[in-house]
């Protein structure tokens, strides 16, 4: 007897990625040889090394997850649905390091490798994870000719009103990071964007093999093995970044995570994190990252914003702020400028130019995902809120943070 298991209801290996939020899956018997009864009980379990990812299961859209799940699967090949999710605290470190095994009795009748892919603290990545990320990022930049140019062009002085100084700051950047991450995953699907936990010392990020070591001038140096040595933006090579602090410590003056999460239970209060710690993190350096028009030239920018997004995710989890219909989930002032109201499409993915939008819209629509259909090619502000699909499963965006559990 053999079975086929599909993760995210897809046979494509490109869809074999899960996070903490439940992913819809299905199983069917492809070869019923040996089946005595029309319905076969099949047990699913997670198999992996102790240091690898692990998954859990449940049969429906509600209820607790368990380490194993027994399904009654018809021998005639009809699919049976179930849900799987990464076991919180057990993310994968490489693609396919965890398998879902299906057993009929004690006989293994099928298995599928998958990855519990979540965004991690950049300071604690393994060397392999770091190297894969850096290689993919350098490839996306492609010495200034790659798709990264679009991401750089999305974050300029001209476009900044679309994404800053108003409530859409967090949703816009969440969509921005998601688009970038999906492009990186098109190069290497094992990658999730890591975050720079800026309120903690992160010496492993500022190394020759990762995001580089700055000299006194602010010129960033890389190891000869590091492909980021070929980084080029705006026609100029290299990265300028001069920390005003020792990279063995956290930047001073930053609002820490506890205080950030305590800014308030309503979105209007919480979003003041745009000033501190977000703005303070940016301006803890001299160099590209410290000015809005040039910040996206530095790859560190994306790890900085990944942490800002993680703080938002954590705040959402703590306060139950995933539902856009809940007033405290967002700041819905009628005075909000275009692109900052819940039903507004977001530039540049909406392709709208001129008038109150910038003159061009680089990058085209939002990158698609093999895992989920949200947020669609032209995301609206609202689509950034329910990123785990906890209010509406169809809203799931396909990413999670290592330390933010599924709600």
């Amino acid at each position, binding site marked *: 007897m053999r079975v086929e298991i599909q993760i995210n209801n897809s046979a494509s290996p490109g869809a074999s990625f899960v996070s903490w939020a439940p992913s819809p899956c299905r199983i069917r018997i492809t070869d019923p040889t040996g089946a005595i009864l029309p319905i076969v009980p099949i047990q699913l379990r997670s198999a992996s090394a102790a240091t690898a990812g692990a998954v859990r299961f449940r049969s429906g859209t509600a209820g607790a997850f368990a380490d194993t799940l027994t399904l009654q699967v018809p021998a005639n090949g009809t699919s049976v649905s179930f849900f799987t999710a990464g076991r919180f605290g057990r993310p994968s470190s490489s693609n396919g390091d965890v398998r879902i095994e299906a057993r009929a009795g004690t006989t293994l009748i099928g298995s599928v490798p998958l990855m519990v892919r979540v965004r991690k603290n950049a300071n604690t990545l393994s060397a392999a994870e770091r190297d894969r990320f850096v290689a993919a990022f350098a490839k996306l930049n492609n010495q*200034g*000719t*790659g*798709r990264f*140019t*679009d991401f750089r*062009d999305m974050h*300029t*002085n*001209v476009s*900044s*009103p679309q994404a800053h100084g108003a409530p859409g700051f967090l949703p816009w950047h969440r969509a921005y990071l998601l688009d970038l991450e999906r492009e990186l995953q098109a190069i290497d699907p094992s990658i999730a964007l890591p975050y720079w936990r800026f309120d903690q010392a992160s010496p492993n990020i500022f190394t020759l093999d990762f995001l580089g070591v700055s000299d006194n001038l602010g010129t960033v140096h890389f190891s000869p093995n590091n492909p980021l040595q070929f980084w080029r933006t*705006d*026609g100029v090579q290299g990265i300028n970044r001069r920390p005003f602090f020792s990279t063995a410590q956290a930047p001073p003056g930053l609002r820490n995570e506890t205080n950030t999460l305590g800014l308030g239970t309503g979105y209007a209060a919480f979003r003041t994190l745009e000033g501190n710690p977000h703005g303070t993190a940016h301006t803890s350096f001299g160099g590209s990252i410290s000015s809005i028009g040039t910040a996206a030239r530095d790859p560190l920018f994306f790890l900085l914003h990944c942490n800002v997004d993680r703080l938002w995710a954590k705040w959402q989890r703590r306060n139950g702020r995933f539902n856009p219909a809940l007033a405290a989930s967002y700041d819905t002032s009628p*005075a909000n*400028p275009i692109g900052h109201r819940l039903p507004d499409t977001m530039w540049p993915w909406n392709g709208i*130019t*001129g*008038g*109150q939008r*910038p*003159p*061009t*819209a*680089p*990058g*085209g629509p939002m990158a698609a995902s093999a895992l989920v259909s949200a947020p669609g090619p032209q995301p609206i502000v609202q689509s950034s809120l329910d990123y785990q699909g906890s209010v509406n499963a169809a809203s799931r965006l396909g990413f999670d943070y290592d330390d933010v559990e599924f709600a």
Partner: protein
Amino acid sequence: MVGEAAGDPDRHGQLLELLREEHPFYNDRGTASTVRMRGWILATLARIGLPDDALLFVLEELDTGVDPYLVAAAARALRSYPAPRAAFAPLVMGALANIRYRDERVSFESYGAYAVGLNGTTPVAELLATLTWLGPHARAILPDLEALRHGGGVARKYAAQLDAAVAAIAAGDLSGEECCTLPRGLGAMLSWPLGTRRSDDAVAQIVLEDHDGNEIAFDELFRGHVSIVVFFYTRCDNPFKCSLTIAKLARVQQRLEERGLLDQIQTAAITYDPAFDVAERLRTYGRERGLRLDAHHRMLRAPCGLDALRRHLQLGVNFVESLVNRHRVEAYIFDRQGRVAASFQRLRWNEDEIVARAVEVMPERKITFPMVGTLSSLALAFFPKCAACWIAYLSMFGIAGLSQIPYSPWLKPAFAILLLLNAATVWLRGRATHRMTGFYLVSAGALALLSTLQFDWKSAAVAGVVLTMAGSFVSAWRRPVRASAATRTA
């Protein structure tokens, strides 16, 4: 130099020359220096009065400018134009939207001065002052201005100026004035009728390399097709120029596709920066802006021929080392012989207008030149009326053997048909150039000559020849005509 030219009315033309990007004055100057120089010239024009010839340079800065100094200078200069016009209002309003988040203090106290400390003026202040100057002529943008005012759209410190502008615009009623179209002669499109176009021989053999690295000579690419050609470069940091130009070219391609013209009208984007914009860069830049790339639609560089192209087309560009320091928005329509039939300069061109113009150039054929009409009219007027006259005419020419050709009365209607065909082509040319005088003359001449087929009116024959000849030449030898600029889109 600028001060001296400003002080002498006979030298004011020099100031206009200094506004051309390609002027040697700007050679090897950085962009920041170029901005200072141009802004100072505009500020000088603001003091001495803005002539018609300089208007387009000012409007250009309002339309696509991103530098506070230049935008402020342009807004100031516009106020010294003899009379406000409704067509200026959308451009001033657009400039306000473009520059408001880059507002900063600027100084026009002396050449090269920067505002240090809390003195000087700002582009937003200058633009608001210009809106006040426009007064009721700016009626069309009043709703936008009021929305800005109520929505907290500009900084509080401009509240009084904003109120003054709104009040000035709301006072008075000029509803009869046509909004948004610049008067003839002040627009951004130049047009060259057939017969006046410069041959492309100077650039015919330039080798171009396209987005896939394929090499092709200029004449091989452009002869045989009507083409829409724009210029750009990938390191342009003005989002209203190159990036937008390529995005708009993609929209032009969509228009062509909708009309089934993708194989008949080519598009080409040529870089000002051929050393840096190699094939892969061109390809990526174009694709990221939705450009279609194939054998009829290319992105190109001229590795060794940019200087020749610059001279031939008189491109509005200059350089510091190999980097562009400043360029104008420019788009061209080439006819089937690779000659410039029309150009759109400085202001952002309209996709529909450019496609329409290219379509107009499409039916032009080489045979439409004035001699055909003239010879046909002569032949018809003096066609021999009998066989003996025929022999006498041919003997008069003394060409051996011609007298042996039998009397061929069928030639008469043939010449009449040629005459009518000539009239038809003159009509087409007249439509393209918006000048129908030549057609009227040719039509009158044709009527006169055709009447001689029925009646033997010698005076009608002579008049017919003269009118046809005059009409054909008038039609062919028009100076380039500046058409009105299209309405700016939001």
